[in-house]
């Protein structure tokens, strides 16, 4: 629980291009760097939009007392953030949300697609540091969109890169990537000891959750939803979560109860009918 000031001023330390589409921003944020845990996010102010923008914490550097976020051009808010340069200042809320619950597992299979991949490096690194076995399957639209390969390779015992356009390890989706994982690897731990941690487009997360459920693996997903505040007061970031008996459900806050939820608790909405992610 963050009991200091939630709103911090961050100095931009670096703006690094990760791919044809993506940029990583390194921000000097000592308190946030000290407190951040894998799967949490920040809310970043920019000069173009009234509301802040949520971005996953993609890296923490304790020596540089910095936190990095990575993003790909969407609307006006992200575009403005991508234009920040060394020496600029922005204000940031964070670290926010409930991250990955990985410590009780013996193996973590991180699965990411699109901008969802940015929520995974800190998880893999923390799992590795906790001597948990790690595998990682990532999907990219095309080869030119591949990002952070070195970090993923360093943190994952096994890394499989998938692209439907080919040119990477697996020609296909992350599901094809998961199916291509060494069966021996998957069989090494009791299914209940394996956590599938997934972040990406909603249909992907849904499919990955189904794949995990078939095998008896635990599965957590990191959801995205439009957020006004990011710290729990406005209730705009609603996501359907099972509650009570039978078909009972309630809207929980992606920013507080999430963004990482147990996949089994999520009631996936039809396209556009509910959670966007």
């Amino acid at each position, binding site marked *: *629980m*963050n*009991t*200091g*000031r*939630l*709103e911090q001023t961050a100095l931009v330390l670096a703006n690094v291009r990760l791919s044809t589409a993506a940029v990583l921003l390194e921000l000097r944020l000592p308190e946030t760097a000290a407190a951040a845990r894998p799967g949490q996010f920040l809310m970043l*102010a920019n000069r173009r*939009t*009234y*509301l*802040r923008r949520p971005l996953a914490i993609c890296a923490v550097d304790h020596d540089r007392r910095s936190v990095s976020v990575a993003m790909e051009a969407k609307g006006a*808010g992200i575009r403005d953030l991508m234009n920040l340069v060394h020496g600029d200042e922005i*204000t940031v*809320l964070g670290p926010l949300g409930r991250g990955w619950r990985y410590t009780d597992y013996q193996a973590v299979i991180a699965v990411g697609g699109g901008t969802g991949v940015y929520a995974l490096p800190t998880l893999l690194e923390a799992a590795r540091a906790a001597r948990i076995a790690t595998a990682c399957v990532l999907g990219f639209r095309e080869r030119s969109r591949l990002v952070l390969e070195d970090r993923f390779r360093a943190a994952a015992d096994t890394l499989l890169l998938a692209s439907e356009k080919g040119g990477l390890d697996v020609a296909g989706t992350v599901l094809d990537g998961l199916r291509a994982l060494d069966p021996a690897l998957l069989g090494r731990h009791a299914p209940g000891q394996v956590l599938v941690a997934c972040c990406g487009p909603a249909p992907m997360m849904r499919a990955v959750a189904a794949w995990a459920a078939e095998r008896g693996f635990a599965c957590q997903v990191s959801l995205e*939803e*439009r*957020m*006004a*505040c990011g*710290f*729990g*007061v*406005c*209730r*705009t*970031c*609603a*996501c359907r979560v099972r509650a009570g008996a039978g078909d009972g459900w*309630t*809207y929980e806050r992606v920013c*507080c109860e999430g963004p990482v939820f147990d996949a089994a608790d999520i009631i996936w*909405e039809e396209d*556009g*009918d*509910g*959670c*966007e992610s």
Partner: protein
Amino acid sequence: MGANPDLTTTVAGLALPNPIIPASGCAGYGREFAKHFELRRLGGLAAKALSLEPRRGNPPPRVAEAAAGMLNAVGLQNPGWDLWAHDELPWMLEQDVILIQNIVGHTVADYVELARRLEGTAVDAIEINLSCPNVADGMSFGAEPDGVEAVTAAVRAVTRKPLWVKLTPQTASIVATAAAAARAGADAVSLINTIPAMVIDVERRRPVLRNNTGGLSGPAIRPVALRMVNEVYRAVAIPIVGIGGIETVEDVVAFLLAGASAVQIGTAALVHPTRPVDLVTDLAVWCRSHGVARVTDLIGALELW
């Protein structure tokens, strides 16, 4: 200049330590703010809307970006009376903050029953949100003076607590609806709620909000709110709580000058979580540097041309 300015104010007899109150729906029941500052440092807390039955609220997306503001269509999600009375109220009362409980209903009877129940609690004031659609005719209770008068009078009959009536700007004359509230026994009017609005995603050819429409809040509506506060201040003898796009201490002062006895901070607190409590400090500094001994000296001190 040396002495500390007196920030206390009263709204229809209810004494507040200062005029800064987080607005309903932008502060939950205070728990999240309480992690970062003591709620008692605020003038009060306008707690999130409460209905008799639990409300799940609207499906997402519930927020859309707008120029100098945002739209929300949360749909008054709240746990309903029972859970609220059990889980939220006791905690809020422990915080030693002036507690203004915002209530919503589908019918006049809903409002009455909520007020009746609140009468038996230690809540400091009741704020009735009249922007809700009336199940009988679909228009909001606050759109016409008759609706305002009906709800206000019915609630007034069952409570002696300070009664704040929160009005919608979507009306022909805010003076007429505020006068209706005053006639029916309101102690104060809260001006203004959000303005119904729509944002469209032109690529998908759909409204961004799953609810199609939502309420516009933030700096965009500030000049409209300020005009309504001053219009009512000049025409109706009732204390006013000013709301709408307040971000800075100059905004707070503008609302006080226009005639508000206290103000509420909504959207700005979503972007700057400690803004309400920061504004308390800023207001003291502003008063000192402007030679204002009592914040109440500012109320209605606007000189019209």
